[in-house]
């Protein structure tokens, strides 16, 4: 139990290797006496697994003895409870409904999430950090994942479970869930804010804003990566920004950029809603964003 994890910690022990070798050699403390690094699965792995299984079963049983699974009134499609909540693991998506229309929050965004998750191994060409814990060598990936997973997914589930009451209104813990709570509705659309009143102009304006966001975003990402200096100790690529971009290629860059910008868009939309009461940016007769 005590032996230091092979990859964990020990930042000083690790230096970026020179050259473009595919696998990065990390010095591992070898046991003396030429003993093999591998252990027999039986009994070493199996016994931990077995102990863990017992522990999990105990915890689960005790938990089940103490807390009953909920069973409410018989189903009645004519009597809508307030609030009606999706299963807790989908509450992040339900929270998105505050900021986006259902087609985006409930369909497009989940698709982005699933596809984006699947694409991670193909977009992440950083050769370092395979098989050990490191933040330094993968700061960008980890930060992105952190924002996406912890903030957008987990914290929104917590919000949806504990802070959202009747009418999907915000309630602090301890506050009574009053089904009659009224909140002032003062949201406006972005084009309207800029004085645009007819549909076509609004649509063009909205498209322009969104298009502009992507253009600026891509450009910013591009120049930010490019500006990475050569020999940056945080980067696995000694050539710096230009090398990263070259290895990455335009397709990976394009997809990554889109996904990152889409994720950032969620934050921007939330900020706009909370700070400026903006409802939609793009307003068309068919879709609103």
């Amino acid at each position: 139990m005590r032996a230091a994890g092979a990859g964990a910690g020990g930042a000083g022990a690790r230096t970026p290797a020179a050259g473009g070798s595919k696998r990065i050699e990390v010095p591992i403390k070898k046991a003396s006496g030429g003993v093999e690094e591998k252990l027999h699965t039986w009994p070493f792995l199996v016994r931990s697994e077995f102990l863990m299984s017992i522990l999990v079963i105990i915890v689960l049983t005790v938990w089940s003895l103490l807390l009953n699974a909920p069973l409410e009134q018989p189903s009645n499609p004519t009597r809508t409870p307030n609030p009606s909540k999706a299963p807790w693991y989908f509450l992040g998506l339900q929270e998105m409904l505050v900021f986006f229309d259902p087609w985006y929050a409930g369909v497009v965004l989940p698709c982005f999430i699933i596809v984006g998750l699947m694409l991670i191994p193909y977009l992440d060409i950083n050769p370092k950090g395979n098989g050990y814990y490191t933040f330094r060598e993968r700061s960008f990936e980890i930060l992105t994942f952190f924002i996406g997973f912890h903030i957008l997914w987990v914290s929104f589930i917590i919000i949806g479970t504990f802070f959202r009451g009747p009418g999907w209104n915000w309630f602090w813990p301890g506050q009574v869930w009053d089904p009659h709570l009224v909140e002032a509705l003062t949201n406006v659309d972005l084009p309207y804010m800029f004085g645009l009143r007819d549909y076509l102009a609004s649509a063009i304006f909205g498209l322009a804003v969104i298009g502009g966001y992507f253009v600026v975003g891509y450009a910013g990402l591009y120049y930010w990566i490019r500006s990475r200096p050569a020999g940056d100790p945080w980067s696995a690529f000694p050539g710096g920004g230009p090398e990263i971009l070259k290895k990455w290629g335009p397709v990976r860059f394009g997809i990554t950029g889109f996904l990152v910008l889409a994720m950032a868009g969620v934050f921007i939309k939330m900020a706009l809603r909370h700070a400026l009461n903006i409802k939609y940016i793009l307003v068309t007769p068919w879709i609103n964003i």
Partner: protein
Amino acid sequence: MAKFDWKETKRQITDSQVWQSIFRHGYEDTPRNRILMVSGNVWLHLHPSKVQKHAVRMRFTWCMGGITFLLFLVTVVTGVYLMFYYRPTAEYAYADMKYLEFDMPFGMLMRNMHRWAAHGMVIAVWLHMFRVFMTGSYKPPREFNWVVGVILLVLTLLLSFTGYLLPWDQLSIWAVTVGSNMARATPLLGHGGPFHEVLGVNPVYDARAFIFGGGEIGPHTLLRFYILHCIFFPLIASLFMAVHFWRIRRDGMSGPL
């Protein structure tokens, strides 16, 4: 009276034909036997016979993949138990839940374990994914196993979601209604989504109706979800799990090489 000889008695027992027919040979702790133990056992051979040292460390693996699988097995076992007493029709479903709770031996415990294990499985999958990301274990050559893992994540959520409806109480149908209402807004395919006119979908013939098995949530949905929950998704998930485990066995635990 002869003195009782414990060792002699033990020998007599282990030498008896009955004992030998069951255990065949004694266990001798040799490296060969250790490997045989793993490769010769239908359950254990999911593991490689030897693993890297760090793969045994809880601090590295968090044990989350194993816990997910364990919880899956728990839901399977308790789920089968519940299936004995549960009838997926609107007339009986809710009443059967009540009987399960109040009447069946260990019914309430089994239901609780099933439900909490299901919730725990969702959390365990997420933590597993988080751990895998943090150790960069999706990197080559394990890219595809990550993709399989994402599919398993989606299947886990679907398993849980379809099971959510089965108690047939207010919580069930409204959670499922809210969850499925998203499908109504699917562009092109949902009758509430953008451009639905293009394909001419309507409330009884669109993406949500496909999920519900009809225009509204109702008894038909219950049966549909029951079959998805008990047969379809577990089968699919098992297939992907097999692939997932097999890849781990072949590729080994990730780790610095």
